[in-house]
């Protein structure tokens, strides 16, 4: 088709697929659209190459404009964010703001930066919006294929390596993906870890009179995806109250498995090839502010409430100081049962609550000061 030739629609297939063309019944060497999904992870995309193509007449596109530098592009891609992820004794918390900005304009105030990959893995994305969205789709597909081929889920470290290897051909181009993979490795039938779940309303540790946000129980929904493959899945839907003796046991068990095969993990992957593992990871223009709050409050032995409050506070402070972060907070909590999503919270209300609290504090300080002055006067008279 002439249009396909001009646009190089089938050109990209030639560059990257290692397999040879099979002539179909008609004897043609064309690849039909149905064969697109077969072999390569990037059947629609290839990194820009400078090699000349002798078997095809050079089109205007391939010879001159095989890669357009960002300076020539008349538009800017979206950047600027605060995302964070940390592990603690009861799983992983992943939190992010929801602002997508493009130079000075907010393209989208309600974008979703945390995307679930499967029932036990969630990825925080930052960098260029389109790159993150499309690479997350590619990663999801590759992980699903891995699971179908090998009958077990890829670990968080394995997923990080996979993503890093897939991004490597694009090093040096302006693909910008900074992803934090947050997940739980291991089988979810471990009984020791199961009983430390609590499904209840989460109230902020700081606020007493605010609206409590309920964690919507999507772990069952998330686990159903994997149920068909892993016959040993037992999805527990019963609500279990937190048992103090059991939780002590859990801490010991999880601590002993930390560094072993299963447990909570966070991994950072960057499009320039950097891969980091750790306990606390924060990415984006607001990350310095988030790190300050997280470093102050993080302990391995935190409860779920404390961890959620810490993550929320970190994002809130970062959105306050960073111009490119703002709007709402998304929060995910991943445990051995899967991920659960906290309702998206608008930070506008939090600013007003903060101001109310400040006003109260100022009033109380005033009262105390007056009281002290009153006491001093009384004492003074007494001495004389």
């Amino acid at each position, binding site marked *: *088709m002439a*249009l396909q030739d001009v*646009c190089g*629609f089938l050109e*990209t297939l030639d560059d990257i697929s290692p397999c040879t063309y099979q002539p179909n019944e008609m004897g043609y060497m064309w690849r039909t*659209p*149905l064969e697109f999904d077969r072999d390569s992870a990037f059947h*629609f*995309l290839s*990194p*820009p190459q400078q090699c000349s193509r002798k078997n095809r007449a050079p089109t205007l*596109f391939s010879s001159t*404009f*095989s*890669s*357009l530098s960002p300076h*020539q*592009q*008349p*538009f800017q*891609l*979206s950047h600027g964010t605060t995302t964070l992820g940390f592990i603690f004794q009861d799983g992983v918390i992943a939190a992010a703001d929801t602002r997508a900005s*493009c130079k000075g*304009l907010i*393209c*989208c105030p309600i*974008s*979703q930066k945390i995307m679930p990959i499967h029932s036990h893995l969630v990825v925080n994305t930052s960098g*260029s*919006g*389109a*790159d*993150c*969205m*499309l690479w997350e789709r590619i990663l999801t597909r590759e992980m699903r294929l891995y699971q179908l081929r090998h009958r077990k889920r890829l670990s968080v470290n394995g997923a990080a390596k996979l993503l890093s290897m897939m991004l490597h051909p694009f090093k040096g*181009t302006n*693909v910008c993906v900074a992803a934090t993979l947050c997940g739980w490795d291991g089988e979810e039938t471990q009984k020791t870890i199961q009983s430390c779940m609590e499904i209840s309303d989460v109230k902020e540790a700081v606020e007493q009179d605010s609206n409590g946000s309920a964690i919507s129980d999507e772990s069952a929904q998330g686990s159903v995806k994997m149920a068909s493959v892993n016959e040993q899945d037992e999805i527990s839907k019963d609500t279990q109250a937190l048992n103090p003796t059991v939780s002590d046991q859990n801490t010991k068990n999880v601590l002993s498995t930390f560094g072993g095969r299963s447990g909570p993990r966070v991994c950072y992957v960057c499009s320039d090839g950097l891969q980091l593992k750790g306990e606390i990871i924060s990415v984006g223009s607001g990350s310095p502010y988030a790190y300050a709050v997280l470093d102050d409050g993080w302990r391995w032995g935190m409860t779920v409430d404390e961890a959620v409050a810490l993550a929320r506070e970190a994002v809130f402070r970062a959105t306050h100081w960073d111009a490119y972060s703002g709007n709402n907070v998304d929060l995910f909590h991943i445990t051995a049962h899967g991920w659960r999503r906290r309702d998206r919270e608008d930070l506008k209300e939090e600013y007003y609550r903060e101001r109310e609290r400040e006003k109260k504090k100022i009033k109380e300080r005033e009262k105390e000061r007056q009281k002290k002055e009153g006491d001093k006067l009384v004492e003074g008279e007494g001495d004389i």
Partner: protein
Amino acid sequence: MMISAQAYGGNGKVKEYHYTGPVEHKFSPYAFNGGTVLAVAGEDFALVASDTRLSEGYSIHSRDSPKCYKLTDTTVIGCSGFHGDCLTLTKIIEARLKMYKHSNNKSMTSGAIAAMLSTILYGRRFFPYYVYNIIGGLDEEGRGAVYSFDPVGSYQRDTYKAGGSASAMLQPLLDNQIGFKNMENVEQLPLSQEKAVQLVKDVFISAAERDVYTGDALKICIITKEGVREEIVPLRKD
């Protein structure tokens, strides 16, 4: 060339305010042809509206070049930016729609078209289509859906979105009128079709007042389960 006396400074030399030597102009494959597109999703309808002015620099190429393209009975796409890329992109989408229809024996749904467009745009990540797309249509349940894109394929589903040259002016107005943002203690009524059409007309009239690339006429495509209906409203021509 006549040089007036104002060009000479106190000591008799020509005043130079800027570099006047040779300048190298590189060929740019892109041009900006202006235009604004807007889409609104309602309970059981969707609107896609665009102006019909095609401009470049200080000239107007055409006053009758609408930017809405009908894809299926339930989906309309609005493309603004570089007109050459808009034309090619819509041809590619239409070709892919036909291929899908022939191999799957059904038309593509709005959500599927959006996902496909995302991969088409990302396929040109290193030489992008300079097009700001907005898809408006009905989803499988018959509710209105709007999908907005950036030039490289990042997309998401919205209730309303403005794109193109006047987007920065129109988006805050839509945030206020349809999203009820920045309003306290207001009753949030769902948007009816008549109110939405009237709002879109008012919004474009304001855009034509302040944006030089928007004007001439407004074309609104109203998508309901009965099909796609078009309305044309004149705008400022200056």
